[in-house]
């Protein structure tokens, strides 16, 4: 006679299969939550990487910013003091902002000096560089394509007419969708006369005998000593911590957490219903000698399978979303279509935790049932 072995996991699988529709809906719930996490956090990280690329491609070593949170502007006059420091090879001021260019299109707008070293990371595709003091702008190639503008055209930004003088290709996707204009023009538009958002600093080569880290720390200390009240932040750190990245990360995590909470409640509800409906069955298991921890493990494992299954579904969904973003012209330059391995690993860990957390209370309740009371349950 054929003997079909029944494993613990086999039992779990059969329990989940018994209520297919509910299992599927729960998987969809947690899948959507994890999908939102992968998609949103993936996009936010791509955005962060875009910023990092801007800093690395233009050779910025340090960003000098305000120490305070509310007042984030830096006096433009600190530039002279910065340039005088022995570790500083070049220092250039800049402002960035987000502005409406048309009712449908808003974009990052940078204010640079015409002689900024940051131009070195850009490739001019058409036209020329703007001149300080003139109402001129340069457009990233993606933005120029979106707005159907080319050198010689004009465009209105916040009530001022600017002449498009050049179209460039940037080192990062963020630059490809941005506007660059003279610093003084953006100061006027943003009512920041005499102020800048940050100073970007390029350091002189490190002296022999000093590691890159040691040199960076020494430079930071020198700058902060010379400019009290300001912070010298390494470029990589600044890329992760600027207000746009922080906002994108906060909204991605905020939305994902809400979605995850709903997913966790979905699993918890499924498991609580399952325990309630299977009260008699739990009583039978206890009557057949199952210990409390076996019942607890059975229910927890079911919740865990839901978490992992939903997590895998969500990773697939999130990756599809990122893939779509990678194909859209507006976001293609920011998002990569390659599989997000690290993020998927994190998503799976979150899904496993979500399953365990959601299953904990129903599992505990199921394990606490008295066998005889559970057997009497209808």
């Amino acid at each position, binding site marked *: 006679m054929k003997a079909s072995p029944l494993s613990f996991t086999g039992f779990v699988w059969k329990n989940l299969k018994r209520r297919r529709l509910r299992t599927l809906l729960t998987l969809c719930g947690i899948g959507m939550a994890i999908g939102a996490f992968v998609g949103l956090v993936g996009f936010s990280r791509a955005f962060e990487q875009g910023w990092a690329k801007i800093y690395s491609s233009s050779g910025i070593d340090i960003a000098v910013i305000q120490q305070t949170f509310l007042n984030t502007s830096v006096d433009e006059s600190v530039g002279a003091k910065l340039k005088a420091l022995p570790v500083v090879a070049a220092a250039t001021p800049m402002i960035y902002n987000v502005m409406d260019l048309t009712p449908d299109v808003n974009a990052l707008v940078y204010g640079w000096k015409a002689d900024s070293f940051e131009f070195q990371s850009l490739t001019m595709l058409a036209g020329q560089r703007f001149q300080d003091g003139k109402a001129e702008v340069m457009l990233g190639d993606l933005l120029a394509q979106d707005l159907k503008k080319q050198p010689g055209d004009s465009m209105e930004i916040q009530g001022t007419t600017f002449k498009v003088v050049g179209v460039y290709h940037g080192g990062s996707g963020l630059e490809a969708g941005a506007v660059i204009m003279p610093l003084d023009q953006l100061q006027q538009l943003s009512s920041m006369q005499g102020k800048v958002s940050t100073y970007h600093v390029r350091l002189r080569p490190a002296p022999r005998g000093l590691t890159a880290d040691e040199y960076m720390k020494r430079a930071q200390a020198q700058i902060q000593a010379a400019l009290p009240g300001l912070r010298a932040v390494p470029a990589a750190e600044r890329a992760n911590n600027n207000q746009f990245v922080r906002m994108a990360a906060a909204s991605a995590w905020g939305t994902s957490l809400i979605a995850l909470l709903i997913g966790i409640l979905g699993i918890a509800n499924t498991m609580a219903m399952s325990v309630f409906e299977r009260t008699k069955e739990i009583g*039978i298991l206890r009557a057949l*000698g199952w210990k409390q921890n076996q019942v607890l493990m059975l229910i927890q494992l079911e919740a865990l399978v839901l978490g992992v299954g939903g997590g895998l579904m969500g990773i697939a969904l999130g990756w599809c979303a990122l893939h779509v973003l990678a194909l859209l012209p507006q976001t293609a330059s920011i998002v990569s279509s390659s599989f997000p391995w690290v993020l998927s690993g994190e998503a799976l860990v979150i899904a496993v935790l979500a399953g365990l957390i959601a299953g904990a209370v129903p599992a505990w309740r199921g394990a606490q049932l008295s066998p005889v009371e559970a057997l009497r349950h209808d």
Partner: protein
Amino acid sequence: MTDFLEVRGLTKSYDDGKIEALRGVDVCIAAGEYVAIAGPSGSGKSTLLHLLGGLDCPTSGEVRFKSASLGSAIDLNTYRARSVGFVFQAFYLMATLRAIENVQVPMMGVERSSSKRAARAAKLLEEMGMEHRAEQYPNQLSAGERQRVAIARALANDPEILLADEPTGNLDSVNSAKIMEILIGIQQKRGMTLIMVTHAPEIACCAPRLISMRDGKVEA
């Protein structure tokens, strides 16, 4: 007669003492004995069976198995898993599991090897004459067949005591006779202690020993 299973001053009340299901029961059952417990509804026979099987704890008094007190000297989970097998009136098979899988359920915390569990389940089903129905789900089996699977499941961990709560209550007379034949056959072949709660006088009368209950007490 050695006191294999001993009940002393057993009481069980519910609802803060408003309902007294058992009112001081004293019973001694020997190893290998076949005992029927009979009595009208509400007489406390099922409550006594549950306490004998370690499914519940008494309000006062104690159940002793081989001279050790249940719940204190003997862990109830271990007792239920290794020393007792239950057969219920409503069979209580898991609907999602095949017959052979149902028989393996009690062994899951006792025998680590799933292939050994499966082999033992197959042997037990063969013993019950159910080998040809091993792969069927409970809803594909007749009532008599379900009870035979339930008996095989009760024997899964080779218990010393078989507790049966109205095992023929849901069966017709032909199947009832078959199930009784199987239970008595097992009891005699294995030398097990069989304690059976029954309403049926013809079954109660056939048992070598009958415990009659009324109003939570054992009748003289």
